[in-house]
């Protein structure tokens, strides 16, 4: 029961806000905040109630559609891999609500979309029936499309449609793979699928693996399927960028571990080297392209491609350490990039530009925001004692033996990333002061900084006390890597 409540609580709050009368529309933000805080509290309770190493827990299971060969369950559960991601989602949802607290344009519909988005992502992380998983995966499209195309900026309709078409094409392949798998195994139950060994299907199993991978890789995203991401980011409102970079991309990484690797370990063994190679290429390519960006949001978007490449590299190594590192990188990247987008959003609200060339010397005029930007930037670079460092080191340690050259490429990419982040910080935060920003108000509302502080605290916590999460990830990933090892 608790998981069902947790998953649907955000959507419930969002739809509740929709019922507010027009003259009370701005109360929608409070309803959304209450809903997201409740969900956050509940997820934290679950986090501490979770019995580490105890497999799937908080199971909610009911028969849903059972006709002939079609046996679809309503089945939610979390394990050590998904629970941290669930907490990340509730946390970033709260941050996203706070970031958009001052929204004026159709606030009821806005918060409804945002909260339904949160429910969809929570559903993806907790669904253990493959078809239910697919439904949640698709559910995420609608609010996301609306959020970008209604509340976005620039070429918002183009970007929103591009996002949808990329994702839907990926899910088309995914659906074929899901049906093929379910047919050969006789079930949609991901737990059963993850424990049985499937030796043949109506499609060659390597196709099934590939189709699933395409569906998830679009979301991750990998080079060359990444081009929707910069567009979506640059045209999305701040809170949506936070959700997109923070949790939506993680759906891809999570799903690859949960399904591709767990259900088809033999194929994962065969293609691990390709995953690692694609990951390393994404790291490098993302880093190079980042250098050319002049828009801060696009810059962060490309750096996300680079950082998510590390996730794929870690998964491609298939060992426990590397995959734990990959999962940790997802969490760290979610928090750090979320924070970057929040801070950039605050900056944009005040300066109305994201062009690096037009910014400069902000440390003087908006010291608080500049501090946040510098902190998040350093975290993104992988400064020790912050979350990103732990993740990167774990991935490299785990993957080095297996894919030496890929790790070397990726390390080079990480060095590049340090370069571009520091360079950007230097141009935006320091440098000559520009007087057009003299009048801006650094500290307008408490809620703007609440999310920054909260995110920074978690980044530090994960940087100095990694075993809080590692202990939880380790047994869950251990099961997966044991399957791969045979």
């Amino acid at each position, binding site marked *: 029961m608790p998981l069902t409540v947790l998953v649907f609580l955000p959507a419930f709050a969002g739809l509740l806000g929709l019922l507010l009368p027009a003259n009370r529309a701005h109360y929608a933000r409070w309803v959304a905040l209450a809903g997201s805080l409740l969900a956050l509290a509940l997820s934290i309770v679950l986090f501490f109630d979770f019995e580490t190493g105890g497999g799937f827990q908080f199971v909610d299971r009911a028969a849903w559609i059972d*006709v002939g*060969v079609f046996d679809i369950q309503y089945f939610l559960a979390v394990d050590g891999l998904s629970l941290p991601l669930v907490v990340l989602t509730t946390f970033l949802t709260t941050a996203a609500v706070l970031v958009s607290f001052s929204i004026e344009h159709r606030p009821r519909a806005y918060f409804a979309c945002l909260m339904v988005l949160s429910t969809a992502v929570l559903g993806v992380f907790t669904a253990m029936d493959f078809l239910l998983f697919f439904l949640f995966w698709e559910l995420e499209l609608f609010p996301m499309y609306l959020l970008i195309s209604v509340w976005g900026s620039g070429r918002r*309709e183009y970007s929103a449609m591009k996002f949808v078409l990329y994702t839907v094409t990926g899910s088309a392949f995914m659906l074929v793979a899901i049906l093929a798998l379910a047919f050969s195994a006789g079930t949609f139950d991901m737990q059963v699928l993850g424990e049985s060994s499937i030796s043949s299907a109506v499609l060659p199993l390597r196709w099934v693996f590939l189709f699933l991978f395409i569906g998830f890789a679009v979301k991750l995203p990998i080079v060359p399927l990444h081009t929707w991401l910069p567009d979506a980011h640059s045209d999305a409102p701040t809170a949506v960028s936070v959700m997109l970079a923070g949790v939506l991309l993680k759906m891809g990484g999570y799903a690859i571990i949960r399904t591709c690797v767990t259900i088809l370990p033999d194929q994962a063994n065969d293609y691990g080297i390709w995953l690692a190679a694609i990951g390393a290429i994404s790291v490098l390519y993302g880093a190079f392209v980042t250098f050319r960006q002049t828009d801060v949001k696009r810059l962060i978007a490309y750096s996300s491609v680079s950082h998510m490449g590390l996730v794929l590299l870690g998964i491609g190594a298939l060992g426990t350490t590397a995959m734990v590192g990959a999962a940790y990188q997802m969490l760290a990247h979610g928090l750090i990039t979320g924070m970057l987008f929040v801070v950039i959003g605050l900056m944009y609200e005040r300066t109305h530009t994201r062009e690096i060339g037009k910014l400069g010397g902000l440390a003087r005029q908006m010291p608080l925001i500049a501090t946040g930007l510098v902190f998040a930037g350093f975290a993104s670079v992988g400064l020790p004692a912050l979350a990103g460092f732990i993740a990167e080191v774990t991935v490299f340690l785990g993957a080095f033996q297996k894919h030496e050259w890929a790790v070397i490429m990726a390390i080079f990419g990480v060095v590049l990333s340090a370069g571009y982040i520091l360079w950007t910080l230097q141009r935006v935060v320091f440098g000559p002061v520009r007087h057009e920003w003299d009048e801006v108000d650094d500290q307008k509302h408490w809620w703007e900084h609440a999310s920054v502080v909260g995110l920074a605290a978690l980044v530090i916590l994960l940087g100095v006390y990694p075993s809080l999460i590692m202990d939880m990830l380790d047994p869950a990933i251990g099961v997966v890597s044991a399957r791969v090892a045979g």
Partner: protein
Amino acid sequence: MSELDIVGPQLAILLAAGAVLVWDALLPTRRQYLPYIALAGILGAAIWTSTWVIRGDFQTAFDGTFAIDQYAVFFQYVFAGITAIVVIASIDWVNRVGRRQSEYYALVLTASAGLMFLAGARDLITIFLALELSSIPQYILAGWGKDQRSSEAGMKYLLLGAIASALLLYGMALLYGFAGSTLLTDISAAIADSGAGNRSLLIVASVLLIAGFGFKMAVVPFQMWVPDVYQGAPTPVAAFLSVGSKAAAFAVVMRLFFEGLGEQFLSNDWAMIFAVIAAVSMTLGNVFAIVQRDIKRMLGYSSIAQAGNFMIGLAAISIAGEHFVQGASGVLLFVAAYAFTNLGAFIAVIGISQKIGSDDIADYAGMWKRAPLLALALAFCLISLAGIPPTVGFWAKLYVFNAGIHADLAWLVIIGVLNSVVSAYYYLAVVRQMFMGEAEDEQKLAISPTVALALGVATIGVIVFGIIPTPLVDAAREAAAIFAAS
């Protein structure tokens, strides 16, 4: 008497058709009751059909040429539902046109009786007569409008329909010449006796039959009439054509090919023909639908693509056993789902185009503000046509795709899912236009209560069966099971 009992539903409808005409002649001032007489006839047919379900005593009549079984019952319900919704949705339009009201209802009812005969026909002659009984009124109805476009539509439909009937008859003649009987069971026995020796003759006959019915199903390459007729015919008639005759053609093709031509050596051949037609129809229908500016033409092309989707199910049923039931029941489920959905979409178009006097998709901009419920209902129907959850269209597609996977038609399923992506683009483009577009004219539209009722029924069906598909799937499976038994 017992034989009249078996065709009771059809008789009830034909009686209502007569009653409508007589009423109009005797009480010309009370024309407003005409639709209620028609509805009473349909209700009578539905009730009569239900007594068959309650009695559970399924049998054949007229020397085996006509059967009442679960399959026929399923389709009789579908046709009763379609006709009722069409009648309700027509009321407003018929009143506005003014002339020949009773004839309109009488023709719709006659066509409907023909469709119901098709559902149970097990003999070539019966099939042909029932087909003509349903077609001739439809030719007249297509030309019902007073403008040149409608006349052109009627003429085109008639001429091409005549050619199709000729092809069909030729195919039937070949079968009769081969088997010496028009009964499907006799034909099946004759084929089984003769073995594979006469395969080429039978394939020619199959191709001719497919060509004849392909016209009614509106699949490529027999689709040329569709966009012109849908655009030219009065919208309620187009709605009727798009679901009624299509569903009936699938109903009869399935029975004809299974009961008559189901022998394994033959079924592999025609299944391949169906598979190719399915692939081509989906692809061409969708590609042409994208570029349409007129919503009725768009729906016309989309109905070609949808017929391609049904046909995946037909192609998948050449394989015996449990998978066979899957393919057949997939077609049935799809037919029922499509009936609700496409009717809903057409009725929404009726409601909107009556008020704004245009079928141009561009004029649907901002419909969300002008007629919120209508826009929402149309959006749901379009989403269902695109096969996106939580609508009945999703389950229909999923089920048919699943059947395709089981029948080793992965290539076809991949084409199918990719086509779903393409179709989502143009369906959602209309949704986007309605919800995001800026209306030139912000005036609210008043929707007539009858249109609202018909649309409400269809849309509630789309959503309710989208969340709880089990009853519909079960009904489809039961209906399809009669083939497995024989």
